[in-house]
């Protein structure tokens, strides 16, 4: 004999996590079709670990290095770009493919639209743009040199700050900027990751 009690009601009415995941399938794609996704993101497994990539309508806006907790990365994007943010790997397919090729050693430059909005216009953005334009695969430069490219030869410290805050690492190659002494310098993903990238590009010896 069945009796109605809250426990039994809960048990019967609660949808499982799997069912909810199924119900949500295709939602992001539909939202994108209706123009409701301001930021799309996806993850990418690489030899260095798992990256998070995010894009807006304008282009790639963020590359988060392995080790950056996903929750924090997404929260900052929600605050700084838009909270209408969904996992939508299809929008990141070109970036994922090019990064895959880069890590496999078969790509030396990126051909991706970039959204620069996370870097303030002015000196900081000029630093990143000139590093992108001039520092090709396998090349390196000093902070002072990059500062000079951006129009302020004596602002190497500020150039360092701009590079340290680079929201689109790897694609915008801040890892190719070294101390004038030749020391490797700092990197968001740690100096070891910077070294590994430079070795991958043949810029430093094995």
């Amino acid at each position, binding site marked *: 004999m*069945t*009796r109605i009690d809250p426990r039994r009601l809960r048990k019967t009415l609660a949808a499982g996590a799997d069912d909810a995941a199924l119900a949500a399938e295709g939602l992001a794609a539909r939202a994108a079709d209706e123009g*409701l996704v301001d930021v799309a993101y996806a993850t990418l497994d690489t030899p260095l670990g798992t990256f998070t990539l995010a894009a807006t309508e304008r282009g790639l806006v963020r590359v988060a290095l392995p080790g950056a907790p996903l929750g924090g990365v997404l929260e900052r994007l*929600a605050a700084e770009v838009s909270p209408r943010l969904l996992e939508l790997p299809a929008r990141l397919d070109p970036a994922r493919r090019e990064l895959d090729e880069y890590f496999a050693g078969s790509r030396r430059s990126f051909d991706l639209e970039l959204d620069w909005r996370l870097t303030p216009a002015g000196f900081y953005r000029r630093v990143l743009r000139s590093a992108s334009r001039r520092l090709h695969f396998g090349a390196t430069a000093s902070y002072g040199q990059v500062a000079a490219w951006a129009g302020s030869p004596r602002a190497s410290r500020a150039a360092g700050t701009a590079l340290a805050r680079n929201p689109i690492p790897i694609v915008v190659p801040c890892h190719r900027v070294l101390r004038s002494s030749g020391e490797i310098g700092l990197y968001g993903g740690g100096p070891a990751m910077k070294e590994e990238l430079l070795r991958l590009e043949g810029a430093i010896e094995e």
Partner: protein
Amino acid sequence: MATQQPFQAFLDEHRAPVLSFLRAMVGPVDADDVFQETFIAALRAYRRMDGRHPRAWVLTIARRKAIDHHRARARRPVPRDDVVELSDRTPAESGHGEEEREIWTAVAGLSAAQRAAIALRYAAELPYREIGTALGCSEEAARRRVHDGLRALRASFENRQEATR
């Protein structure tokens, strides 16, 4: 304006209670469609959400979408009885026993208002104050509606058991 959490996190956090609520409201088969309508509408309005009670907020949308769904169905050429349709579509095929079927049938037999209150409480796990928000009534009225719903469920059970005796 407070910063909204990323919509993906919002969706992940509330999708199970919203689906549970909608299953109770429109039946398990149609629930998936109404679920997507709900979250698309939520995304559309997301930047205007006040953020204090996100679950109550999305369940308010879900309740409206469930009502729209019932209206749309009522306009179809061959209307079917709501109760029959809901109990027809309980997830019996997914290994649910006699007992679960009885509960689904009893829930389907509630008035729409009571079903919403019961579903918000026991499928979506909202506190009474937020049930009030989602139903557009006071906390006290929400409490009363849930209790009335429970009483109606028990009565429906007893009747059925009388009938089978």
